Protein backbone atom coordinates (compact mmCIF):
# COMPACT_ATOMS: atom_id res chain seq x y z
CA UNK A 1 0.00 0.00 0.00
CA UNK A 2 2.84 2.36 0.83
CA UNK A 3 4.21 1.70 -2.62
CA UNK A 4 1.14 3.20 -4.24
CA UNK A 5 1.03 6.07 -1.76
CA UNK A 6 4.57 6.91 -2.76
CA UNK A 7 3.42 7.55 -6.31
CA UNK A 8 0.44 9.56 -5.07
CA UNK A 9 2.77 11.64 -2.90
CA UNK A 10 5.15 12.15 -5.77
CA UNK A 11 2.33 13.39 -7.96
CA UNK A 12 1.12 15.79 -5.25
CA UNK A 13 4.58 17.21 -4.62
CA UNK A 14 4.99 17.96 -8.30
CA UNK A 15 1.90 20.13 -8.37
CA UNK A 16 3.44 22.51 -5.78
CA UNK A 17 0.04 23.42 -4.27
CA UNK A 18 1.00 21.74 -1.02
CA UNK A 19 4.26 23.68 -0.97
CA UNK A 20 2.36 26.94 -1.33
CA UNK A 21 0.01 25.86 1.48
CA UNK A 22 2.97 25.06 3.73
CA UNK A 23 4.55 28.41 3.01
CA UNK A 24 1.28 30.25 3.64
CA UNK A 25 0.76 28.55 7.01
CA UNK A 26 4.35 29.15 8.00
CA UNK A 27 4.32 32.83 7.13
CA UNK A 28 0.99 33.43 8.85
CA UNK A 29 1.94 31.62 12.06
CA UNK A 30 5.39 33.10 12.17
CA UNK A 31 4.18 36.66 11.67
CA UNK A 32 1.36 36.22 14.20
CA UNK A 33 3.87 35.24 16.85
CA UNK A 34 6.02 38.20 15.88
CA UNK A 35 3.18 40.73 15.86
CA UNK A 36 1.48 39.81 19.11
CA UNK A 37 3.17 40.64 22.37
CA UNK A 38 1.37 37.88 24.16
CA UNK A 39 1.88 34.39 22.78
CA UNK A 40 -1.50 33.19 23.93
CA UNK A 41 -3.09 36.00 21.91
CA UNK A 42 -1.20 34.75 18.88
CA UNK A 43 -2.48 31.26 19.57
CA UNK A 44 -6.00 32.64 19.64
CA UNK A 45 -5.52 34.18 16.18
CA UNK A 46 -3.92 30.99 14.95
CA UNK A 47 -6.93 29.10 16.26
CA UNK A 48 -9.12 30.90 13.74
CA UNK A 49 -6.75 29.88 10.94
CA UNK A 50 -6.72 26.30 12.08
CA UNK A 51 -10.48 26.12 12.45
CA UNK A 52 -11.40 27.83 9.19
CA UNK A 53 -8.52 27.53 6.73
CA UNK A 54 -7.30 24.01 7.47
CA UNK A 55 -10.69 22.35 6.86
CA UNK A 56 -11.31 24.47 3.76
CA UNK A 57 -7.95 23.71 2.15
CA UNK A 58 -8.15 20.04 3.11
CA UNK A 59 -11.57 19.71 1.51
CA UNK A 60 -10.83 21.61 -1.69
CA UNK A 61 -7.39 20.13 -2.21
CA UNK A 62 -8.60 16.57 -1.66
CA UNK A 63 -11.54 16.95 -4.00
CA UNK A 64 -9.47 18.47 -6.78
CA UNK A 65 -6.76 15.87 -6.29
CA UNK A 66 -9.29 13.06 -6.49
CA UNK A 67 -10.65 14.24 -9.82
CA UNK A 68 -7.18 14.95 -11.18
CA UNK A 69 -6.00 11.46 -10.36
CA UNK A 70 -9.03 9.80 -11.88
CA UNK A 71 -6.82 8.49 -14.70
CA UNK A 72 -4.39 7.08 -12.18
CA UNK A 73 -7.23 5.33 -10.36
CA UNK A 74 -8.55 3.94 -13.63
CA UNK A 75 -5.13 2.62 -14.55
CA UNK A 76 -4.70 1.01 -11.15
CA UNK A 77 -8.08 -0.67 -11.42
CA UNK A 78 -6.93 -2.70 -14.40
CA UNK A 79 -4.02 -3.97 -12.31
CA UNK A 80 -4.23 -6.69 -9.68
CA UNK A 81 -5.05 -4.24 -6.89
CA UNK A 82 -8.18 -4.12 -4.78
CA UNK A 83 -10.33 -1.02 -4.74
CA UNK A 84 -9.99 -0.66 -0.99
CA UNK A 85 -6.24 -0.58 -1.34
CA UNK A 86 -6.36 1.97 -4.14
CA UNK A 87 -8.59 4.36 -2.21
CA UNK A 88 -6.67 3.94 1.04
CA UNK A 89 -3.40 4.65 -0.78
CA UNK A 90 -4.91 7.79 -2.22
CA UNK A 91 -6.10 8.79 1.24
CA UNK A 92 -2.73 8.08 2.80
CA UNK A 93 -0.94 10.10 0.13
CA UNK A 94 -3.21 13.13 0.41
CA UNK A 95 -3.47 13.05 4.21
CA UNK A 96 0.28 12.65 4.60
CA UNK A 97 1.08 15.61 2.38
CA UNK A 98 -1.51 17.87 4.05
CA UNK A 99 -0.35 16.79 7.49
CA UNK A 100 3.28 17.51 6.77
CA UNK A 101 2.29 20.91 5.38
CA UNK A 102 0.45 21.66 8.61
CA UNK A 103 3.18 20.33 10.87
CA UNK A 104 5.87 22.33 9.11
CA UNK A 105 3.74 25.45 8.60
CA UNK A 106 2.13 25.67 12.03
CA UNK A 107 3.92 23.02 14.06
CA UNK A 108 7.40 24.48 13.88
CA UNK A 109 6.42 28.06 14.89
CA UNK A 110 4.21 26.77 17.70
CA UNK A 111 6.95 24.54 19.10
CA UNK A 112 9.28 27.47 18.85
CA UNK A 113 7.16 30.18 20.45
CA UNK A 114 4.42 28.50 22.44
CA UNK A 115 5.49 25.05 23.46
CA UNK A 116 2.89 24.42 26.16
CA UNK A 117 -0.41 22.66 26.72
CA UNK A 118 -2.37 25.16 24.62
CA UNK A 119 0.08 24.93 21.74
CA UNK A 120 -0.04 21.16 21.73
CA UNK A 121 -3.83 21.22 21.88
CA UNK A 122 -3.80 23.49 18.83
CA UNK A 123 -1.52 21.11 16.95
CA UNK A 124 -3.65 18.14 17.93
CA UNK A 125 -6.80 19.90 16.71
CA UNK A 126 -5.13 20.86 13.43
CA UNK A 127 -3.97 17.31 12.78
CA UNK A 128 -7.37 15.88 13.63
CA UNK A 129 -9.23 18.42 11.48
CA UNK A 130 -6.93 17.77 8.50
CA UNK A 131 -7.64 14.04 8.68
CA UNK A 132 -11.36 14.51 9.31
CA UNK A 133 -11.90 16.84 6.39
CA UNK A 134 -9.76 14.79 4.05
CA UNK A 135 -12.04 11.86 4.90
CA UNK A 136 -15.19 13.88 4.36
CA UNK A 137 -13.85 15.24 1.07
CA UNK A 138 -13.11 11.72 -0.16
CA UNK A 139 -16.66 10.74 0.63
CA UNK A 140 -18.02 13.78 -1.21
CA UNK A 141 -15.88 13.20 -4.30
CA UNK A 142 -16.57 9.47 -4.48
CA UNK A 143 -20.29 10.13 -4.25
CA UNK A 144 -20.46 13.02 -6.70
CA UNK A 145 -20.66 12.25 -10.39
CA UNK A 146 -18.46 15.02 -11.75
CA UNK A 147 -15.90 17.56 -10.69
CA UNK A 148 -18.27 20.52 -10.37
CA UNK A 149 -20.67 18.61 -8.15
CA UNK A 150 -17.82 17.21 -6.09
CA UNK A 151 -16.25 20.57 -5.36
CA UNK A 152 -19.68 22.11 -4.79
CA UNK A 153 -20.54 19.42 -2.27
CA UNK A 154 -17.19 19.88 -0.53
CA UNK A 155 -17.73 23.64 -0.27
CA UNK A 156 -21.27 23.22 1.04
CA UNK A 157 -20.08 20.76 3.67
CA UNK A 158 -17.39 23.18 4.73
CA UNK A 159 -19.95 26.00 4.97
CA UNK A 160 -22.12 23.76 7.07
CA UNK A 161 -19.42 22.76 9.52
CA UNK A 162 -17.66 26.12 9.71
CA UNK A 163 -20.59 28.55 9.68
CA UNK A 164 -24.11 27.18 9.43
CA UNK A 165 -23.81 24.67 12.24
CA UNK A 166 -22.96 27.36 14.81
CA UNK A 167 -25.98 29.35 13.72
CA UNK A 168 -28.19 26.33 14.18
CA UNK A 169 -26.76 25.65 17.63
CA UNK A 170 -27.37 29.27 18.64
CA UNK A 171 -30.92 29.02 17.36
CA UNK A 172 -31.55 25.89 19.39
CA UNK A 173 -29.99 27.37 22.53
CA UNK A 174 -32.03 30.53 22.14
CA UNK A 175 -35.27 28.67 21.61
CA UNK A 176 -34.75 26.45 24.63
CA UNK A 177 -33.04 28.99 26.83
CA UNK A 178 -35.49 28.29 29.66
CA UNK A 179 -34.20 24.77 30.07
CA UNK A 180 -30.88 23.50 31.36
CA UNK A 181 -28.92 22.84 28.16
CA UNK A 182 -25.39 22.19 29.40
CA UNK A 183 -25.29 18.44 28.77
CA UNK A 184 -27.12 18.86 25.51
CA UNK A 185 -24.64 21.42 24.15
CA UNK A 186 -21.87 19.01 25.02
CA UNK A 187 -23.56 16.49 22.76
CA UNK A 188 -24.06 19.10 20.04
CA UNK A 189 -20.37 19.93 20.06
CA UNK A 190 -19.53 16.31 19.30
CA UNK A 191 -21.58 16.51 16.12
CA UNK A 192 -19.21 19.06 14.59
CA UNK A 193 -15.46 18.41 14.61
CA UNK A 194 -14.69 22.12 14.21
CA UNK A 195 -16.74 23.03 17.29
CA UNK A 196 -15.22 20.20 19.23
CA UNK A 197 -11.74 21.40 18.32
CA UNK A 198 -12.60 24.98 19.26
CA UNK A 199 -13.94 24.06 22.68
CA UNK A 200 -11.01 21.74 23.28
CA UNK A 201 -8.49 24.53 22.72
CA UNK A 202 -10.48 27.38 24.30
CA UNK A 203 -10.72 25.52 27.58
CA UNK A 204 -6.95 25.26 27.71
CA UNK A 205 -6.78 29.05 27.61
CA UNK A 206 -7.43 31.66 30.26
CA UNK A 207 -10.39 33.12 28.41
CA UNK A 208 -12.50 30.11 29.39
CA UNK A 209 -13.05 31.94 32.66
CA UNK A 210 -15.26 34.37 30.75
CA UNK A 211 -17.63 31.67 29.60
CA UNK A 212 -19.70 31.51 32.78
CA UNK A 213 -21.48 28.49 34.14
CA UNK A 214 -21.43 26.48 30.90
CA UNK A 215 -17.72 27.22 30.60
CA UNK A 216 -17.16 25.91 34.08
CA UNK A 217 -19.03 22.74 33.27
CA UNK A 218 -17.07 22.33 30.07
CA UNK A 219 -13.82 22.97 31.84
CA UNK A 220 -14.75 20.32 34.33
CA UNK A 221 -15.39 17.84 31.56
CA UNK A 222 -12.72 18.66 28.98
CA UNK A 223 -10.09 19.40 31.60
CA UNK A 224 -10.30 15.86 32.92
CA UNK A 225 -8.81 12.76 31.36
CA UNK A 226 -12.25 11.66 30.17
CA UNK A 227 -12.56 14.87 28.18
CA UNK A 228 -9.33 14.24 26.34
CA UNK A 229 -10.35 10.69 25.53
CA UNK A 230 -13.80 11.89 24.54
CA UNK A 231 -12.30 14.39 22.08
CA UNK A 232 -9.84 11.84 20.75
CA UNK A 233 -12.54 9.21 20.32
CA UNK A 234 -15.01 11.51 18.58
CA UNK A 235 -12.29 12.80 16.24
CA UNK A 236 -11.29 9.23 15.38
CA UNK A 237 -14.92 8.44 14.62
CA UNK A 238 -15.06 11.52 12.38
CA UNK A 239 -11.97 10.28 10.53
CA UNK A 240 -12.90 6.62 10.10
CA UNK A 241 -16.65 6.71 9.49
CA UNK A 242 -16.63 8.94 6.36
CA UNK A 243 -13.60 7.06 5.04
CA UNK A 244 -15.24 3.67 5.51
CA UNK A 245 -18.40 4.99 3.89
CA UNK A 246 -16.33 6.31 0.98
CA UNK A 247 -14.68 2.90 0.53
CA UNK A 248 -18.09 1.24 0.55
CA UNK A 249 -19.37 3.57 -2.16
CA UNK A 250 -16.15 3.29 -4.16
CA UNK A 251 -16.27 -0.51 -4.12
CA UNK A 252 -19.68 -0.51 -5.78
CA UNK A 253 -18.98 2.23 -8.24
CA UNK A 254 -18.77 1.74 -12.02
CA UNK A 255 -15.69 3.36 -13.41
Amino acid sequence: MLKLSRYVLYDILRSKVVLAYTLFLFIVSFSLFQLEENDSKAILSLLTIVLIVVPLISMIFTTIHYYNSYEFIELMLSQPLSRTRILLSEYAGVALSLLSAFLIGVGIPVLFFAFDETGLALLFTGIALTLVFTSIAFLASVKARDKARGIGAALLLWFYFALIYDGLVLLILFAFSDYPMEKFTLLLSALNPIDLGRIFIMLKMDISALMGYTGALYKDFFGSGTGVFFTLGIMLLWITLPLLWAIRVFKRKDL
Partner: protein
Amino acid sequence: MIRIENLKKKFKKLQALDDINSLFNQGQVISLIGPNGSGKTTLIKCILGMVRADSGSIHVNGKQINGDPSYRSQIGYMPQIGRYPDNMKVGQLFRMLKDIRKIPETGLDTDLLVKFNLVSIFDKPMRTLSGGTRQKVSAALAFYFNPAILILDEPTAGLDPLSSEILKEKIMQEKKKNKLILITSHILSDLDELTTDVMYLQEGKMIFYKELSALKKETNEEKLGKAIANIMKGGKKEALWIDEVLALKETVKNN
Protein backbone atom coordinates in the same frame (compact mmCIF):
# COMPACT_ATOMS: atom_id res chain seq x y z
CA MET B 1 -10.45 -19.46 -19.24
CA ILE B 2 -13.25 -16.92 -19.05
CA ARG B 3 -16.79 -18.07 -18.44
CA ILE B 4 -19.64 -15.60 -18.45
CA GLU B 5 -23.05 -16.58 -17.13
CA ASN B 6 -26.31 -14.62 -17.41
CA LEU B 7 -24.51 -11.32 -17.22
CA LYS B 8 -26.82 -8.31 -16.98
CA LYS B 9 -26.07 -4.64 -16.57
CA LYS B 10 -28.31 -1.64 -16.70
CA PHE B 11 -27.21 2.00 -16.80
CA LYS B 12 -30.24 3.97 -15.71
CA LYS B 13 -32.75 3.07 -18.42
CA LEU B 14 -30.27 1.66 -20.89
CA GLN B 15 -29.84 -2.10 -20.84
CA ALA B 16 -26.12 -2.21 -21.59
CA LEU B 17 -25.76 -5.98 -21.26
CA ASP B 18 -28.69 -8.32 -21.53
CA ASP B 19 -28.17 -11.89 -20.42
CA ILE B 20 -24.76 -12.62 -21.92
CA ASN B 21 -23.54 -16.21 -21.77
CA SER B 22 -20.29 -17.40 -23.25
CA LEU B 23 -17.08 -19.28 -22.82
CA PHE B 24 -13.68 -18.04 -23.99
CA ASN B 25 -10.82 -20.50 -24.14
CA GLN B 26 -7.09 -20.58 -24.55
CA GLY B 27 -5.84 -20.17 -28.10
CA GLN B 28 -8.94 -18.31 -29.21
CA VAL B 29 -8.87 -14.86 -30.70
CA ILE B 30 -12.36 -13.49 -30.23
CA SER B 31 -13.62 -10.47 -32.10
CA LEU B 32 -16.28 -8.55 -30.25
CA ILE B 33 -18.19 -6.62 -32.83
CA GLY B 34 -21.33 -4.57 -32.94
CA PRO B 35 -22.48 -1.00 -33.52
CA ASN B 36 -21.53 1.86 -31.18
CA GLY B 37 -23.15 1.48 -27.81
CA SER B 38 -23.84 -2.21 -28.20
CA GLY B 39 -22.11 -3.07 -24.94
CA LYS B 40 -18.69 -4.21 -26.10
CA THR B 41 -16.70 -1.98 -23.80
CA THR B 42 -19.11 -2.59 -20.94
CA LEU B 43 -18.57 -6.33 -21.31
CA ILE B 44 -14.80 -5.84 -21.23
CA LYS B 45 -15.05 -3.57 -18.21
CA CYS B 46 -17.18 -6.18 -16.46
CA ILE B 47 -14.47 -8.78 -17.05
CA LEU B 48 -11.91 -6.37 -15.64
CA GLY B 49 -14.10 -5.60 -12.64
CA MET B 50 -14.32 -1.90 -13.44
CA VAL B 51 -18.06 -2.11 -13.96
CA ARG B 52 -20.14 -4.07 -11.48
CA ALA B 53 -22.75 -6.29 -13.12
CA ASP B 54 -26.31 -6.25 -11.80
CA SER B 55 -26.62 -10.01 -11.96
CA GLY B 56 -24.83 -13.00 -13.38
CA SER B 57 -21.26 -14.06 -12.87
CA ILE B 58 -17.87 -14.10 -14.55
CA HIS B 59 -15.31 -16.80 -13.86
CA VAL B 60 -11.67 -16.41 -14.82
CA ASN B 61 -9.68 -19.63 -14.67
CA GLY B 62 -12.50 -21.30 -12.77
CA LYS B 63 -12.62 -18.65 -10.05
CA GLN B 64 -15.48 -16.22 -9.83
CA ILE B 65 -14.31 -12.64 -9.88
CA ASN B 66 -15.62 -11.18 -6.69
CA GLY B 67 -13.49 -8.85 -4.68
CA ASP B 68 -10.19 -10.69 -5.04
CA PRO B 69 -8.20 -8.69 -7.61
CA SER B 70 -5.38 -11.22 -8.08
CA TYR B 71 -6.89 -12.63 -11.28
CA ARG B 72 -6.08 -9.35 -13.02
CA SER B 73 -2.38 -10.21 -12.90
CA GLN B 74 -3.12 -12.57 -15.81
CA ILE B 75 -4.82 -9.93 -17.89
CA GLY B 76 -3.22 -7.36 -20.13
CA TYR B 77 -5.67 -4.59 -20.95
CA MET B 78 -5.39 -1.98 -23.65
CA PRO B 79 -8.14 0.62 -23.17
CA GLN B 80 -10.00 2.37 -25.96
CA ILE B 81 -8.74 5.75 -24.80
CA GLY B 82 -5.58 5.45 -22.76
CA ARG B 83 -5.72 7.97 -19.95
CA TYR B 84 -2.67 8.35 -17.77
CA PRO B 85 -1.53 10.64 -14.98
CA ASP B 86 -0.41 13.89 -16.61
CA ASN B 87 2.69 14.48 -14.55
CA MET B 88 4.03 10.97 -14.86
CA LYS B 89 6.80 10.28 -17.32
CA VAL B 90 6.57 7.37 -19.73
CA GLY B 91 9.50 5.56 -18.11
CA GLN B 92 8.04 6.07 -14.65
CA LEU B 93 4.76 4.60 -15.78
CA PHE B 94 6.43 1.38 -16.88
CA ARG B 95 8.58 1.27 -13.74
CA MET B 96 5.60 1.84 -11.50
CA LEU B 97 3.53 -0.93 -13.05
CA LYS B 98 6.51 -3.27 -12.89
CA ASP B 99 6.76 -2.37 -9.23
CA ILE B 100 3.09 -3.14 -8.66
CA ARG B 101 2.94 -6.40 -10.56
CA LYS B 102 6.21 -7.66 -9.06
CA ILE B 103 7.34 -9.46 -12.18
CA PRO B 104 11.07 -10.19 -12.63
CA GLU B 105 12.90 -8.51 -15.48
CA THR B 106 13.15 -11.79 -17.39
CA GLY B 107 9.38 -12.26 -17.42
CA LEU B 108 8.79 -9.00 -19.23
CA ASP B 109 7.94 -8.68 -22.88
CA THR B 110 9.65 -5.57 -24.19
CA ASP B 111 9.04 -6.42 -27.82
CA LEU B 112 6.60 -3.59 -28.52
CA LEU B 113 8.60 -1.18 -26.39
CA VAL B 114 11.49 -1.70 -28.77
CA LYS B 115 9.48 -1.81 -31.98
CA PHE B 116 7.53 1.35 -31.21
CA ASN B 117 10.78 2.95 -30.07
CA LEU B 118 9.18 4.06 -26.80
CA VAL B 119 12.43 3.96 -24.86
CA SER B 120 13.47 7.16 -26.62
CA ILE B 121 10.53 9.04 -25.05
CA PHE B 122 10.94 7.57 -21.56
CA ASP B 123 11.63 10.97 -20.02
CA LYS B 124 8.65 12.72 -21.58
CA PRO B 125 5.61 13.46 -19.40
CA MET B 126 2.43 11.67 -20.46
CA ARG B 127 0.53 14.90 -21.09
CA THR B 128 2.86 15.89 -23.94
CA LEU B 129 2.19 12.73 -25.93
CA SER B 130 -0.05 12.66 -28.98
CA GLY B 131 -3.09 10.39 -29.14
CA GLY B 132 -1.31 7.85 -31.32
CA THR B 133 1.75 7.71 -29.08
CA ARG B 134 -0.46 7.22 -26.05
CA GLN B 135 -2.09 4.35 -27.90
CA LYS B 136 1.36 2.84 -28.46
CA VAL B 137 2.13 3.18 -24.77
CA SER B 138 -1.17 1.45 -23.95
CA ALA B 139 -0.35 -1.38 -26.35
CA ALA B 140 3.15 -1.84 -25.00
CA LEU B 141 1.78 -1.90 -21.45
CA ALA B 142 -0.83 -4.51 -22.27
CA PHE B 143 1.81 -6.89 -23.63
CA TYR B 144 4.53 -5.90 -21.14
CA PHE B 145 3.77 -8.49 -18.48
CA ASN B 146 3.31 -11.38 -20.84
CA PRO B 147 -0.23 -12.10 -19.61
CA ALA B 148 -2.20 -15.22 -20.53
CA ILE B 149 -5.25 -13.14 -21.41
CA LEU B 150 -5.11 -10.06 -23.59
CA ILE B 151 -8.02 -7.66 -23.82
CA LEU B 152 -7.65 -5.08 -26.55
CA ASP B 153 -10.31 -2.40 -26.94
CA GLU B 154 -10.02 -0.86 -30.41
CA PRO B 155 -6.28 -1.51 -30.59
CA THR B 156 -5.61 -0.11 -34.04
CA ALA B 157 -7.76 3.03 -33.83
CA GLY B 158 -5.51 6.06 -33.98
CA LEU B 159 -2.37 4.19 -34.93
CA ASP B 160 -0.52 4.95 -38.16
CA PRO B 161 -0.49 2.14 -40.76
CA LEU B 162 3.04 1.05 -39.90
CA SER B 163 2.43 0.84 -36.14
CA SER B 164 -0.89 -0.81 -36.76
CA GLU B 165 0.90 -3.51 -38.78
CA ILE B 166 3.48 -3.98 -36.01
CA LEU B 167 0.70 -4.40 -33.48
CA LYS B 168 -1.18 -6.87 -35.64
CA GLU B 169 1.95 -8.90 -36.10
CA LYS B 170 2.46 -8.91 -32.35
CA ILE B 171 -1.10 -10.14 -31.83
CA MET B 172 -0.44 -12.95 -34.34
CA GLN B 173 2.67 -13.94 -32.42
CA GLU B 174 0.79 -14.06 -29.12
CA LYS B 175 -1.96 -16.07 -30.77
CA LYS B 176 0.61 -18.70 -31.64
CA LYS B 177 1.63 -18.83 -27.98
CA ASN B 178 -1.84 -20.19 -27.25
CA LYS B 179 -3.12 -17.13 -25.41
CA LEU B 180 -6.67 -15.93 -25.11
CA ILE B 181 -7.13 -12.67 -26.96
CA LEU B 182 -10.27 -10.52 -26.93
CA ILE B 183 -10.44 -7.73 -29.49
CA THR B 184 -13.07 -5.16 -30.26
CA SER B 185 -12.78 -3.18 -33.42
CA HIS B 186 -14.80 -1.48 -36.10
CA ILE B 187 -12.15 -2.13 -38.70
CA LEU B 188 -13.30 -5.57 -39.78
CA SER B 189 -10.54 -6.03 -42.32
CA ASP B 190 -8.03 -5.82 -39.46
CA LEU B 191 -9.84 -8.55 -37.60
CA ASP B 192 -10.13 -10.81 -40.61
CA GLU B 193 -6.57 -12.09 -40.42
CA LEU B 194 -6.50 -12.42 -36.65
CA THR B 195 -9.70 -13.90 -35.35
CA THR B 196 -10.79 -17.45 -34.77
CA ASP B 197 -14.22 -16.60 -33.36
CA VAL B 198 -16.72 -13.82 -33.74
CA MET B 199 -19.11 -12.54 -31.12
CA TYR B 200 -21.76 -10.12 -32.30
CA LEU B 201 -23.42 -7.82 -29.81
CA GLN B 202 -26.34 -5.53 -30.39
CA GLU B 203 -28.17 -3.40 -27.85
CA GLY B 204 -26.58 -5.45 -25.12
CA LYS B 205 -27.76 -8.74 -26.50
CA MET B 206 -25.50 -11.41 -27.89
CA ILE B 207 -26.81 -12.07 -31.39
CA PHE B 208 -24.34 -14.83 -32.20
CA TYR B 209 -21.02 -16.31 -31.16
CA LYS B 210 -19.48 -18.49 -33.84
CA GLU B 211 -16.22 -19.72 -35.25
CA LEU B 212 -15.05 -17.57 -38.10
CA SER B 213 -14.74 -20.53 -40.48
CA ALA B 214 -18.29 -21.66 -39.70
CA LEU B 215 -19.54 -18.15 -40.21
CA LYS B 216 -17.84 -17.91 -43.58
CA LYS B 217 -19.13 -21.29 -44.65
CA GLU B 218 -22.68 -20.45 -43.66
CA THR B 219 -22.68 -17.28 -45.66
CA ASN B 220 -20.45 -18.36 -48.53
CA GLU B 221 -18.42 -15.21 -48.10
CA GLU B 222 -14.68 -14.82 -47.96
CA LYS B 223 -14.57 -11.57 -46.02
CA LEU B 224 -15.64 -11.11 -42.41
CA GLY B 225 -17.39 -7.84 -43.17
CA LYS B 226 -19.52 -9.34 -45.91
CA ALA B 227 -20.21 -12.47 -43.92
CA ILE B 228 -21.60 -10.44 -41.07
CA ALA B 229 -23.60 -8.26 -43.40
CA ASN B 230 -25.00 -11.41 -44.94
CA ILE B 231 -26.01 -13.02 -41.70
CA MET B 232 -27.58 -9.87 -40.39
CA LYS B 233 -29.74 -9.39 -43.43
CA GLY B 234 -32.13 -12.06 -42.21
CA GLY B 235 -34.88 -9.60 -41.38
CA LYS B 236 -32.93 -7.49 -38.90
CA LYS B 237 -33.14 -3.86 -39.83
CA GLU B 238 -30.80 -2.80 -37.03
CA ALA B 239 -27.93 -4.38 -38.90
CA LEU B 240 -28.21 -1.83 -41.64
CA TRP B 241 -25.15 0.01 -40.42
CA ILE B 242 -22.90 -2.64 -41.83
CA ASP B 243 -24.60 -2.46 -45.22
CA GLU B 244 -24.07 1.25 -45.17
CA VAL B 245 -20.39 0.80 -44.44
CA LEU B 246 -20.02 -1.64 -47.29
CA ALA B 247 -21.98 0.57 -49.65
CA LEU B 248 -19.85 3.52 -48.68
CA LYS B 249 -16.72 1.52 -49.32
CA GLU B 250 -18.04 0.54 -52.75
CA THR B 251 -18.72 4.14 -53.73
CA VAL B 252 -15.29 5.20 -52.54
CA LYS B 253 -13.75 2.43 -54.61
CA ASN B 254 -15.76 3.32 -57.71
CA ASN B 255 -14.77 6.93 -57.51
